[in-house]
């Protein structure tokens, strides 16, 4: 077992645990709430913790410090260049023409007027587009990064209302937009499935990420019928769009056989591989960079515009900047699919669940592998004697639905956590207490042991911070003038994931600095900031002496900023690269020097030195080592091991959310006045950045509860509000000050003890809002969004 003896670290595992206990629940508002914990459920280490070999799990050193973002100065100066802000000599601007039917064929396309318009350089339609292979969508292959597998402009067929049917290139954006408006298209429309009812008639059990979205244990319907107390409820959630403030864009050029792309993507390597396959070129013939991505949220993947821009650039022999208009984003980059869900809960009078039924339907397209997996929280959050969980999916002729922040669980926790509130009321049990009574001692569906789980502490700490009033079947809402005020709570859930493909390279230089290189993506999470902190601790260097390069597919690894797992994937990659670097350094130790002949496994790095792990006083500094071997730098690269931890353990993050709402008794106006969230996500690597991630998820969930809705015309399959003026999302006045905190208990089986924090904030607040609205008004609204007309 390796042990750092840095003075900031603690020398043994026991002290390490005490340190963790002392620092837990360090809230974002710099409140250290230590004494609050009452007989915490997991004061004992989780299984396996004492065996965890990663010293950083127990001795985090400077990890967690609230360091500001490394790219902050560039961003506030407006000097961070995004995808549409790079130029190439001779570059032209692209504009798209979108289909106006949901399904059918293009009978004729007249580009004559557009071709004659000022500034027009080239027009591409299915009549002159190059032959291209269909792109591989996410989950259809290990490297798929596309939104759908539909061929791109290969024939006259139309597959959704909004499909690109022509690309116009012109000298300026104004000229391209104008010329695109002159393209005239005649269609032969075919019958299309554009209504949810039609699409889900005969819907089948969905497959997702290699498994059936179905779990049956016992006879849940019979248990429900026999239950002392039960609820049986129907819910619906609408379509939603990501609305990253940066519209999707790409700037492309073919340079000496290399496809050069300045992109906005959540996975630089997978985007490069996917587009390389479309063009039949080697992935090494694509150089894709995306240093800054103006919001991802699941939607910045490979869409048709990338392929069309690259194809048109090749045919026109001109570099192309393709910036989607805001409407264009809605036409060709998908959002979250709608769902209809049933939750039925049966319980004994003691509140113990005897039946948990969570079933429902959603829609997808025939050409993707993405079904909203909305049962995942129900699979892992609560024990129940009998369960029936099932997602059925039908296909529709529409723009590809896709991943959006916390796919599945965002819309699945809303009904689950609302139904628990309704059950608690019928039982006359406090909603927090009901959840604690159904806390499982092992994973309810897989039977695996939890790697670490402290949701009960999160409930208790959240209740304390918020000032939760226990209730027993009666509303506690009150009236203040014309405002009805109520409170509600919900649990939060998000799975731990670590995708394969992680790798990193570490280069140490004789000036005592290190360069870490990972093909990771950054769309605002703080990737380089967190990566530098982890690497510095692992290497034994100062944070300031570690530089991080990312956002470039020529760097090591195939990392993807999705599933809240990139930090874990980078963490595992850094651990592997560090071990490789130690081996390289060990091989450099000259005869006669300290540490000579020691096996690499006995060594580690600390205080700018290679040290004997068992006795760090035995050491040789990096500078010495490099100088004596006549080198100015040393580099090591390694791949992360496969993610076996998630197979062995039940790994997920949890949390508790409490909120207060005000509903205007006269107008129905809804305001969120207070909210607290406490999360159990393993180690927190940077308090400042983590608080922002939690808050960001909470705000999007509040927004989901109150306003978000992509209006879909079921007559013709067209999105009716493709605009930030007509798709509502929160402005500053809608957002309260949000209190967040965390347990900070490291997960001994997650790299660096950290499980990921990007999406869990999205799960829970929408239900907490609905429950608080009930407390305030006595109204149960089960169809999102909860707009004021529903509260009148």
């Amino acid at each position: 077992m390796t042990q750092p003896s840095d003075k900031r670290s603690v020398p043994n595992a026991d002290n390490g645990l005490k340190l963790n206990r002392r620092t837990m629940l360090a809230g974002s508002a710099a409140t250290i709430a230590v004494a609050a914990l009452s007989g915490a459920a997991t004061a004992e280490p989780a299984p396996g913790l004492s065996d965890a070999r990663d010293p950083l799990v127990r001795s985090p050193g400077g990890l967690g410090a609230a360091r500001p973002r490394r790219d902050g100065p560039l961003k506030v100066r407006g000097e961070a260049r995004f995808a549409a802000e790079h130029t190439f000599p001779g570059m032209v601007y692209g504009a798209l023409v979108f289909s106006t039917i949901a399904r059918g064929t293009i009978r004729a396309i007249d580009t004559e007027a557009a071709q004659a318009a000022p500034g027009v350089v080239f027009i591409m339609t299915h009549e002159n587009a190059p032959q291209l292979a269909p792109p591989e969508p996410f989950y259809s292959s290990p490297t798929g990064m596309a939104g759908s597998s539909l061929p791109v402009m290969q024939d006259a067929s139309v597959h959704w209302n909004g499909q690109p049917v022509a690309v116009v290139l012109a000298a300026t954006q104004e000229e391209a937009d104008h010329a695109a408006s002159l393209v005239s298209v005649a269609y032969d429309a075919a019958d299309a499935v554009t209504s949810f009812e039609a699409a889900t008639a005969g819907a089948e059990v969905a497959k997702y990420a290699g498994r059936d979205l179905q779990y049956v244990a016992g006879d849940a319907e019979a248990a429900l019928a026999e239950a002392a107390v039960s609820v049986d409820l129907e819910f619906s959630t609408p379509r939603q769009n990501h609305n990253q403030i940066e519209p999707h864009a790409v700037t492309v050029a073919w340079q000496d056989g290399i496809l050069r792309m300045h992109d906005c993507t959540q996975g630089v390597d997978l985007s490069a591989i996917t587009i390389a396959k479309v063009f039949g070129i080697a992935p090494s013939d694509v150089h894709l960079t995306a240093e800054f991505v103006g919001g991802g949220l699941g939607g910045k993947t490979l869409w048709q515009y990338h392929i069309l821009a690259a194809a048109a650039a090749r045919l026109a022999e001109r570099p192309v900047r393709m910036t989607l208009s805001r409407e264009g984003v809605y036409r060709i980059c998908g959002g979250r699919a709608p769902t209809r869900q049933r939750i039925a809960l049966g319980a004994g009078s003691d509140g113990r669940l005897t039946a948990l039924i969570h079933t429902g339907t959603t829609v997808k397209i025939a050409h993707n592998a993405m079904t909203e997996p909305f049962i995942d929280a129900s699979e892992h959050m609560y024990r129940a004697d009998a369960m029936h969980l099932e997602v059925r999916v039908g296909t529709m002729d529409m723009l590809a639905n896709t991943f959006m922040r916390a796919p599945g669980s965002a819309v699945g926790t809303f009904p689950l956590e609302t139904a628990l509130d309704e059950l608690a009321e019928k039982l006359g049990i406090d909603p927090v207490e009901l959840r604690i009574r159904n806390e499982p001692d092992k994973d309810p569906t897989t039977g695996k042991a939890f790697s670490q789980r402290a949701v009960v502490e999160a409930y208790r700490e959240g209740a304390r911070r918020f000032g939760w009033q226990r209730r027993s079947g009666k509303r506690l809402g009150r009236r203040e003038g014309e405002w009805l005020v109520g409170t509600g709570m919900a649990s939060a859930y998000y799975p731990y994931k670590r995708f394969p493909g992680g790798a990193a390279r570490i280069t140490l230089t004789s000036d005592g600095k290190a360069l870490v290189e990972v093909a990771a993506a950054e769309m605002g999470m703080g990737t380089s900031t967190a990566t530098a902190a982890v690497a510095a601790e692992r290497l034994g260097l100062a944070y300031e002496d570690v530089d991080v390069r990312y956002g470039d597919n020529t760097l090591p690894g195939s990392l993807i900023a999705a599933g809240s797992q990139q930090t874990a994937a980078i963490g595992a990659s850094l651990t592997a690269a560090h071990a490789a670097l130690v081996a390289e350094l060990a091989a450099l130790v000259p005869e006669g020097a300290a540490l000579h002949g020691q096996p690499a496994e006995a060594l580690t790095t600390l205080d700018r030195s290679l040290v004997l792990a068992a006795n760090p006083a035995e050491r040789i500094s990096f500078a010495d080592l490099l100088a004596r071997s006549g080198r100015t730098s040393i580099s090591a690269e390694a791949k992360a091991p496969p993610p076996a931890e998630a197979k062995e353990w039940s790994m997920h993050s949890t949390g508790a959310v409490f909120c207060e709402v005000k509903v205007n008794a006269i107008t129905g106006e809804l305001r969120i006045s207070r909210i607290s969230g406490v999360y159990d996500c393993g180690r927190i690597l940077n308090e400042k950045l983590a608080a922002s991630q939690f808050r960001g998820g909470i705000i999007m969930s509040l927004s989901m509860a109150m306003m978000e809705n992509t209006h879909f015309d079921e007559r013709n399959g067209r999105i009716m509000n493709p605009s930030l003026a007509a798709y509502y999302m929160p402005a500053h006045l809608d957002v309260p000050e949000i209190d967040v905190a965390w347990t900070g208990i490291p997960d001994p089986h997650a790299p660096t003890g950290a499980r990921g924090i990007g999406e869990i904030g999205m799960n829970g607040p929408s239900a907490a809002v609905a429950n608080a609205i009930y407390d305030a008004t006595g109204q149960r609204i089960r169809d999102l969004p909860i707009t004021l007309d529903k509260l009148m």
Partner: protein
Amino acid sequence: MAISINGQPYDVPKDARVSLLDLLRDTLDRPGTKKGCNQGACGACTVLVDGERILACLALAAQYDGRSVTTIEGLARDDSLHPLQALFVEHDGFQCGYCTPGQIMSAVALREEFERGSPSGVSPDLQASPERSRAEIKERMSGNLCRCGAHNGIIDAIAAYVSEDSL
């Protein structure tokens, strides 16, 4: 015919359709001013014209002949950040950074509006000087959307900025 942008004169574009935003981003290759919606709904393109905030996407460049435009690139002095830029970093008032230039330019003008005593929709008294409260700031910043959810940090940064007397 010239538009002053961050103190430098630039020709007014010949194409009358060119917005001030496209002049900055496409013609002059100054992409610090962002395009989020191109229809005045998101605030990402906020710039100052003679000290007042406008949406550059809704402004035809030709209208600004003889006017003085300040963009995010014109805010910092050499190596040192403008005080509000530094406060945005300190209070973590952004994640992806795309709405950030618009938020900052909007807040620079907001402070001027406070100093002029201009009321907002939530000011209780149109005659009295508005209180520099979070409610006033949030109301005056509600034309600048953020999707990452950095709202709390943004308002913290601006609250610190408008309450500092020495700036």
